[in-house]
């Protein structure tokens, strides 16, 4: 992230020593690109800016046009937010569940992706279609049967109960399968000739070559767990077990809502996600450069 030190994030500079940008037809095109990207970045940043401003405006309402500079900015909303009792614990719950979900999903997705890309077996196409089909039913509908099932297992109000349905993700498997399919098969064939079995090819050839996709999946697994609302709400009923999105939803009162606290909660919930994203993005870009595919 050396670039982040540049004063204006939207300034573009051509560096003739390295690869030219795709639009190399002249300065005009570059200027247009700069302006469009800059305007777009402002438009993208705006809702988050609004969230931050509202969070430091005591007694803020949401009906009017937001004032860009609050009259009496204050961090009071953040203090009140963290003073709410198990709030710190709820952040840790969310963090723990998100990390566990991400680690397990990376494992289950990579192994399945390898099977669907590199192992021939009867009915592979059908099995893959069934995997994809698990994404096609709205979660709202699965909640009741899932609740009954987990209750029979005695897993209500346990972290395991919240985690089990997230252990495998058809989204992640599909994402990684596309990446594994792009790893040249000559690499496995060479390894096979050297006596490597599937486990070795998986660990030493395939995994290093799909690092950008693994980093991408890290972002999305973490995000889906971090933001998930409905299932944790149903399975974790005790306040000290509950997660951040549920705590944030509880801030929106039945009659009146203190929007500065709600927005402070929103900021607090976005920041870890952004950190994971920026961290993983580095690997998306570096991955292939180091992997010996070239």
């Amino acid at each position: 992230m050396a670039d982040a030190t540049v004063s204006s994030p939207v300034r573009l500079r051509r560096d003739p020593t390295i690869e030219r940008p795709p639009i190399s037809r002249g300065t005009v095109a570059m200027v247009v690109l700069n302006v469009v990207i800059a305007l777009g970045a402002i438009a993208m940043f705006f809702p988050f800016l609004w969230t931050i401003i509202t969070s430091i405006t005591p007694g803020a309402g949401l009906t009017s046009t937001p004032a860009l500079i609050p009259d009496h900015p204050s961090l009071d909303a953040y203090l009140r937010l963290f003073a709410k009792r198990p709030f710190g614990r709820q952040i840790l719950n969310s963090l723990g569940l998100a990390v566990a979900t991400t680690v397990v999903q990376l494992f289950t997705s990579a192994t399945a992706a390898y099977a669907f890309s590199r192992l021939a077996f009867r009915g592979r196409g059908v099995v893959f279609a069934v995997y994809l089909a698990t994404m096609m039913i709205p979660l709202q509908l699965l909640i009741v049967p899932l609740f009954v099932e987990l209750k029979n297992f005695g897993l209500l109000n346990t972290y395991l109960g919240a985690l089990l349905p997230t252990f495998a993700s058809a989204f992640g498997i599909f994402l990684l399968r596309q990446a594994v399919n792009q790893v040249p098969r000559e690499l496995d064939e060479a390894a096979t000739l050297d006596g490597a079995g599937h486990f070795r090819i998986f660990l030493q050839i395939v995994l290093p070559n799909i690092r950008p996709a693994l980093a991408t999946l890290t972002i999305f697994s973490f995000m889906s767990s971090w933001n998930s609302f409905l299932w944790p709400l149903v399975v974790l009923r005790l306040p000290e077990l509950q997660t951040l999105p549920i705590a944030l939803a509880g801030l929106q009162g039945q009659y009146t809502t203190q929007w500065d606290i709600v927005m402070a909660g929103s900021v607090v919930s976005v920041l870890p996600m952004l950190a994971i994203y920026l961290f993983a993005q580095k690997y998306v870009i570096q991955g292939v450069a180091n992997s010996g595919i070239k």
Partner: protein
Amino acid sequence: MTTSIAGPSTPAVARAVPPRSTGPVRRTRARYALTVLAFLLPSAIPLALFVLAPMIGAAWVSLLKWNLLAPPQFVGLANYVKLLHDPSTGQVFLHTLYYVVGYLPLVYVGGLALALALNTRLKGRNLLRGVYFLPVVTSWIVVALVWRWLLNPSTGVVNTVLAWFGIHGPGWWTDPNWAMPSIIIASAWKDLGFVMVILLAGLQNIDPDLLDAARVDGAGWWRRLFNVVLPLLSPSTFFVIVISLINGFQVFDQVYAMTGGGPGGASEVVVQQIYDLTFRYGQAGNASALSWMLFVVVLAVTVVQIIGQRRWVTYG
């Protein structure tokens, strides 16, 4: 490369299923089957237990008349018949289709443009990638508030800017004809970063030497895009399209937050109907039946894509 693995030169485990036979071949076969299971079971077990099993449970519920409280009553396919005769079923499916058809091209072309622009060596591109990803992690509650404000018919920024050019802007989310386009624009805007991230990862797989070779051969930027970049990006494109359609048919959060299905039901979608049937009207059986109708549509769309991909998706 990490292929210099020393080992006994036993016949390599074939990638294809070995022919059926007896003796040592059968043992190889059994070992191969175990390998397949070892790679597949870690994902198959949780999916079967915690997604497929509840799906089957939901399928059973679709054959019941049940309000979640009183004892259910078996009614066979009556829920399906009722839904097929209800004109509002066709309406919500049409609205959902409208959403998908409007949303997909917008989010894909926008996400591709963004990924290409941010794959260049711009100063501050990491920061820009972060900024463009922000909407993806922002909750729909906030995004909907902002977009309702931007698209406010009288005071909104969009109509104000249109007025500078002498264009009288539409009523956006307050107008039945413009409610769905408003939702589509906000959704595409929010998901641009998602598509960007997937395509950026895909772009990393493209060998720069190929682009250099095309450049040496005199191919301009557009030629390189269509003849080199897009074909090599096709596995990522395929992924984005399949996932966007699966998620698009289940659109709900943004409709709920932006228009609540209004005005006058003009933007009501399938999952919203499922939600209302379950939690507002206590008709769990009808809701399940509607979900299964949606499932069949999404499955059909996905299978068509999987079959069609052979024509345009190229791997490695």
